[in-house]
C-alpha cells in the first residue's frame, strides 16, 4: 500500500475512533463558558482558551502537570489572564487565537470592545485595539507572509483589519448589514478573507481591493456548473447570455484584475482566481446580489477545509452548509437534522481529509460525514451547551470546550 494512502487510512481510522478521553483531563481555571479554543500551529502543543468570565488560559498538552491515579494526565493552565490582571478583559472573551507564526503572541477579542495582543512570555498586553462594539470574532491568516493583520468582526457592520505591525486599523470592509459573527481567512490565498454576518450573508473579500467580490447564495447550487457539450463558439455565446444579468463591461475589468493578480506571483491562489472569473459581476455594485444570503438568520460559524477548496458554514437556521469556494456554489449536501445555538458564534472543526466535520450541537458535538452529510457520531460528555470544538490533526485529539453549568 502506498505510504500516503496508508497514512490517510490510519488518520481517518483514528478520527473515526475518536472518543472522550479518560486519560487526559484539562483542569480549567475558567469560571464561565469557554468560547474559544485553539492549539498553536507551530508545535501543536499549547492550547489557548478564552472564556466568558473574561479570562484566557494556556495549557501544555504534551506534558501533564500531574498524574492522577497514576495514568490520568491532568493538565493545569500554565498561563492565565483574567479580570484580576491589570490589562485583563472586563467582559466575555469571545475569541482567543495564537499568532500563527510562533507562540510568542496571542490575540484575544472581547465583548468589552477591545482586541488585545498579548506577549506570551511576559503576559503583558503589547497592543490593543478599541472597536466600536462587542467583538465577536477575530482571525489571523495562517499562511500570510506579507501582512500581520487581525481581522475582527464586531456588533458593528464593518469588518476591521488591525495591523500588528503598525498598531492601526488598515482597512474597514463594509458590506454587511448587521454585526459579524464569524471570520475565516482563506487557506489558499493570504489576501482573501471570508466573513459571516448576522444578516445571513457570507462575503468574500480580497483585502487588496475595495468591496467584496463574492457573496454566497444558498440558492445557487453546484448542479450543472460545467457548461454542456455544444460547439465552443455558441457555447461561449450562450455563456455570456446566461450571465448577462448585469454589467457586461465588468468582465473585461475583472480579467485585467485577474492578470494583475497573477503577475504579482500569486500562483498559489489559482483556484481563487478562477473564482473571480466565474462570478463576473461585482456584487458590491449590484443591489440584487447584495441581498443574497447563505443562511436564513445569522451566520454563526465558518470553517474552510485544509485544502482550501470548501467552506463550511453554520447558521442560526440550524443548518450546516458546504460551499465550493471556487465557484461559490452551495453543494447542497444535506446535513442531517441538528439544533444549533443561535445567539453565539460557534467554532467548527474539520479533519484533514476533510471527511468529517465537527459541530457543537447544544450539549453535544456531532461529527458529520462531509460529503454525504450523514451523522457519523455524536459525542456527549458536556453538561451544558458546547460553544466550540477544535480538531488537532497532529495528535488527533479533538478538544471540545466545556460550558460550566
Amino acid at each position, binding site marked *: 500500500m*502506498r*505510504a*500516503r*494512502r*496508508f*497514512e*490517510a487510512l*490510519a488518520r481517518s*481510522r*483514528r478520527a*473515526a*475512533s475518536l472518543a472522550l478521553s479518560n*486519560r487526559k483531563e484539562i483542569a480549567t481555571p475558567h469560571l464561565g463558558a469557554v468560547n474559544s479554543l485553539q492549539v498553536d500551529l507551530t*508545535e*501543536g*502543543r499549547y492550547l489557548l482558551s478564552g472564556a466568558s468570565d473574561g479570562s484566557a488560559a494556556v495549557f501544555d498538552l*504534551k*506534558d501533564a502537570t500531574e498524574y492522577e491515579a497514576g*495514568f490520568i494526565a491532568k493538565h493545569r493552565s500554565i498561563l492565565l489572564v483574567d479580570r484580576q490582571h491589570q490589562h485583563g478583559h472586563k467582559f466575555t472573551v469571545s475569541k482567543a487565537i495564537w499568532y500563527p507564526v510562533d507562540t510568542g503572541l496571542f490575540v484575544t477579542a472581547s465583548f468589552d470592545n477591545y482586541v488585545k495582543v498579548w506577549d506570551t512570555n511576559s503576559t503583558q498586553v503589547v497592543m490593543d485595539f478599541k472597536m466600536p462594539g462587542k467583538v465577536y470574532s477575530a482571525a489571523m491568516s495562517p*499562511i500570510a507572509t506579507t501582512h500581520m493583520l487581525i481581522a475582527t468582526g464586531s456588533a458593528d457592520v464593518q469588518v476591521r483589519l488591525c495591523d500588528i505591525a503598525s498598531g492601526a486599523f488598515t482597512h474597514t470592509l463594509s458590506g454587511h448589514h448587521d454585526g459579524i459573527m464569524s471570520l475565516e481567512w482563506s*487557506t*489558499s490565498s493570504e489576501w482573501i478573507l471570508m466573513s459571516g454576518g448576522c444578516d445571513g450573508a457570507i462575503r468574500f473579500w480580497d483585502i487588496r481591493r475595495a468591496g467584496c467580490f463574492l457573496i454566497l447564495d444558498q440558492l445557487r447550487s*453546484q448542479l450543472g*456548473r*460545467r*457548461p*454542456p*457539450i455544444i460547439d*465552443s463558439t455558441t*457555447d*461561449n455565446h450562450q455563456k455570456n447570455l446566461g450571465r448577462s444579468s448585469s454589467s457586461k463591461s465588468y468582465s473585461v475589468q475583472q480579467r485585467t484584475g485577474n492578470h494583475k493578480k497573477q503577475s504579482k506571483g500569486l*500562483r*498559489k491562489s*489559482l*483556484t481563487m482566481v*478562477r473564482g473571480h472569473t466565474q462570478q463576473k459581476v461585482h456584487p458590491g455594485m449590484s443591489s440584487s446580489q447584495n441581498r443574497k444570503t447563505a443562511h436564513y438568520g445569522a451566520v454563526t460559524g465558518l470553517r474552510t477545509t*485544509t*485544502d*482550501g*477548496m470548501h467552506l463550511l458554514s453554520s447558521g442560526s437556521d440550524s443548518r450546516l452548509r458546504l460551499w465550493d469556494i*471556487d*465557484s461559490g456554489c452551495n453543494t447542497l449536501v444535506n446535513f442531517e437534522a441538528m439544533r444549533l445555538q443561535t445567539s453565539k458564534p460557534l467554532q467548527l472543526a474539520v479533519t*484533514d*481529509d476533510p471527511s468529517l466535520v465537527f459541530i457543537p450541537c447544544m450539549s453535544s458535538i456531532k461529527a458529520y*460525514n462531509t*460529503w*454525504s452529510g450523514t451523522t457519523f457520531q455524536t459525542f456527549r460528555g458536556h453538561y451544558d451547551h458546547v460553544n466550540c470544538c477544535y480538531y488537532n490533526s*497532529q*495528535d*488527533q485529539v479533538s478538544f471540545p470546550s466545556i460550558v460550566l453549568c
Partner: protein
Amino acid sequence: MGDVSDRIGRPTDNGQIGIIDPDCRLIGLHLYDGLFKVIPFDNKGQLKEAFNIRLEELQVLDIKFLYGCVRPTIVVLYQDNKDARHVKTYEVALKEKDFVEGPWSQNNLDNGAGLLIPVPAPLGGVIIIGEETIVYCNANSTFKAIPIKQSITRAYGRVDPDGSRYLLGDNAGILHLLVLTQERERVTGLKIEHLGETSVASSISYLDNGVVYVGSRFGDSQLVKLNLQPDATGSFVEILERYVNLGPIVDFCVVDLDRQGQGQVVTCSGAFKDGSIRVVRNGIGINEQASVELQGIKGLWSLKSSFSDLYDMYLVVSFISETRFLAMNMEDELEEIEIEGFDAQIQTLFCQNAINDMLIQVTANSVRLVSCTSRELVDQWNAPEGFSVNVASANASQVLLATGGGHLVYLEIRDAKLVEVKHAQLEHEISCVDLNPVGENPQYSSLAAIGMWTDISVSIFSLPDLELIRKENLGGEIVPRSVLMCTLEGISYLLCALGDGHLFSFLLNASTGELTDRKKVSLGTQPISLRTFSSKGTTHVFASSDRPTVIYSSNKKLLYSNVNLKEVNHMCPFNTAAFPDSLAIAKEGELSIGTIDDIQKLHIRTIPLNEQARRICHQEQSRTLAFCSFKYTQNSMEESEAHFIRLMDHQTFEFLSTHPLDQYECGCSMISCSFSDDNNFYYCVGTAYVLPEENEPTKGRILVFAVEDGRLQLIVEKETKGAVYSLNAFNGKLLAAINQKIQLYKWMTREDGSHELQSECGHHGHILALYTQTRGDFIVVGDLMKSISLLVYKHEESAIEELARDYNANWMTAVEMIDDDIYVGAENSYNLFTVRKNSDAATDEERGRLEVVGEYHLGEFVNRFRHGSLVMRLPDSEMGQIPTVIFGTINGVIGIIASLPHDHYVFLEKLQTTLVKFIKGVGSLSHEQWRSFHNDKKTSEARNFLDGDLIESFLDLNRSKMEEVAKAMAVPVEELSKRVEELMRLH
C-alpha cells in the same frame, strides 16, 4: 523547468497521475485532490504557463487522454461517496482554462474498476478494466463487456499500434491477451486469452517479434517471449531473461554465514507469489574445492603440458629452499611429480610455458629451459659469478631478470636456445619486473616494466634494446613490490603495487610506452603481488595481500572488488580439465584450489518461497534462519491468507520445519534471544489476530520456540491484548511493544521445569508503538505518528519511564540506535532524521526533549535498520571503528549509514558542497533541494547528513575536473582520492 507543486491542496491518496495528450497539445497532471493541472504546449513545442482546473471528482482512480478528439479530452475514472465507480469525460478548453462537459459518460461500473486504456484512432474510446469485467465504451455509445475471472489487473501493454490487442498483467502474475474484434472500424466485441505466468507485472512493454519486457516491483523483472504454440503446461510464455530486483525489502537480518568476519544481508524480498529470501553478499567469493596444508609457500605458478594445451597441468610451488611440482593425475587428484630438467633444490623465482613447447624456470642462479615432452634440460643460462638473480619475469619468448647491483639481463628464446640479447646497468637496485605482453603479439612484448629501490620509481623500457622510455616517480618511501602490464577491455594499464598495500594505476600506451592518468588507491596494508587470471573469457587482475582484491574493468573503468578471503600470499590461475577456471591460492600455511564467483561487486542468491516473507531472524547457535511468511490462496470464491513460521538451515537454505499460525493470526515480529538463568536460545515470535471487523487488533500472542533436532518446538505461548509489533531481548527479559503499550516480560521457570512469560512492568502513552530498539537500560520507541521517544527501565523500581521524546509529528517506518546518544529514524515521507539525547541539558524541559540533530531526504521508504556491514572489517584500520547501520527499502535499495568522526565529516561536507558545483544532477535538479527534509508539515535543508553517492562520484570525474575540484578545495587530488576511497571502503 519549473515547479508544479501547489502550496495548498491535499496530495492524492491514489498516487499522482501524469499524462500527455496524444496530439501533444498539453500535459495533464493530477497531483492534488480536486485539481487537474494543465501545462499547455505552444505550437513550437515549448511549455506555457501551467494552470489548475477544478475537478469535481475527489476520488480519482485514473485519468487518460482520449485519442482522436478535436479538442483535448480526458476520461476520468472516479469513485463517488457511495463507493460506486463511474467514468466521465471532459474537454479541456485551454482558452477558458476550464473543462467543458465531455462527449459521454458511463455510470456504475465494476466495483473494482481501476485501470483505463485509451484506444487509438480510428477505433477510439476507452477500455475499462475491472476486477470482474472488462468494458469498452466510446463516444458513439458503443458498449461492449466481457466477464473475466476475478483478478486485479495492475499493468497493460499495447501490442499493435492500432490498439486492437493488449497484454494485461494481474497481481497473480498471470498474463492475458485482450483482443478487440472489429469490423469497419467499429468494435464488435472483446476477447480475452490466458497466455501464461510471469512475475507480478508493474509495467508491460511489448518490444517486437513477440518479445515483451515485464517490469516488476514485486519480483524480478523479466524479458519474455510469447510463443505461437503453447508448451506442455499450456503456457505461451517463455522466460528469456531475469533482472534481479530486491524490492520490496520488508525485513532483513545481517549474518556472517561463511564465518569470514563479513556480514551478509538476508532479506525478505518480493511480494505475493514472487516472495523470496535473498542473500546479498559483497565482494567476490572463492568456492574452495580442495586444500592441502603447506607451510611457507613463496611462489606459485601453473604450467601446461604443452604450449598449445588448453588446460594447465602442473602446479609449481616454490619454498624458501626447494621447489615442488604437483600435477593432476588421471583420477583428477593432485600428486607430487618430478620434472627432471627443473632444479628442485632451490627456490623458484619464475616459471612459464614458452614457445617451441618449452618450460622456463628461473632460480637464483640460473635460467633453465626444459622441453615439455621429454622434461629434460635443453638449455641453461647461468648467473654471472658473484651475482644471483633477485627478480625475474618471462613470457612465451622473453625472459627479463635482475641481478644484484642494478644489473638487468634480457634473454630471448630462439630455436630452443636461451640467447642473452642485452645487458644494462641501472643506477638503483631493481625491486620488480614485468614482461606481460600488452601489444598485438601475445608472445612477445616490446615493453618491460621495472620498479626500483632507492628512488621509488617505476620505469618503462623498450625491448629488445632496453632503452628507458618513461620513468614515473611514485613518491613516498615505500618500495614497489609488484608491477604488471595488462589489457582489460582493450585498454592497457600499468599497475604498480607498493609494500604498504597501495596500488598505482596508469594508462599505458602499448606502442609508445607513454604513461598517463595516474591514480592511487589503497587496497590493504601488506605488500601486494599482482597476477592476471581469466574467468569466463575475460582477463582480470588478482592482487594478493592481506585484503585480496580483484581488479576488473567495467565500462572502461577500473573497479576494485574485494575477495572474501582473509589473507592471500600468492595466487595463480590453475585452469585444469577437472577444475576449469580455478585459482590456486596460497594462504598462510595452506594451499587451496577453488573457483571464483562472477566478477561483480554484489552477489545475490535467491531462495524462492512462492509466498511473502515478512520477518526474518538468524540464530547462530542452532545454525538456522526463521521467518514469518504468508500465502494468499484463492479458491473458487474465497480469498484467504495463511500465515506460517518457517525454519530453514542457514547454509543450505533447506526448509526444516513449519509452524502454522491460527486463522487470522499473522506474525508481526521475531527475534532470537536467551533469557537470564537459561542458556538456551529461543526464537520469540509476536503475532496479532487480524480480524476483518476490527480496526486495530485486540488480541495477539507471544510464542517462544526452541529448535530441537531441526524442528520448531513451541515452549511457551502468552496471550497479549493487542498486536505484538516489536520484540527485543532486554536484560535477559523480553520487551514487547503491544499496540500502544510497551510491556516487559520475565522468564520464569516453574517447579516442573516448564517455563512461562510473566509480565513485569509496562509503559503507556503511544499511539501505536511499532518499533523498539534497546541498548543497556534504554529503550527507543518509534511510534506510528509521534516520532521517537526514549524510555528507561529502572531496576530498583522495576518500572519503565519516559525520559525524553521528539515532539515532531513524524510517522515512523523504522528506528535504530546508532550509539548511546544518537538515534536514527525513518519516516513515511521518505526522510531520515537523527535525534540526540540531551542528558547534560540544564533544565528538565530540555532533558525531556530529543533534539533533532540531523535531517535528510533519502527518497526511499526505509523498512528496517540493522547494525552491521557488508564489508570485512580490518581491526587495525581507522575506518574499521566507524559504526555503520544498514537499511533496506521498499524499492529494494540496500544502503548504509556511517557515523563519521567530526573532522572527517567537516572535510567531506566541504567536498560535497564543492562537488555540487561540478556535478550536475539529472535534469539539473538541485541536489540541495532534493536532499532537503520534506514532509507535509515542513521543509528544511539537510543537515548533518552527507550524500555518499555524490561524494564517491568524485572518482568518476576526469582528471581535469578532479583538479578543478582539488583546487577549489585547496587539497591535492591524491589526498582527495584517498579520502574518498577510504569512504568507499565502508561498503
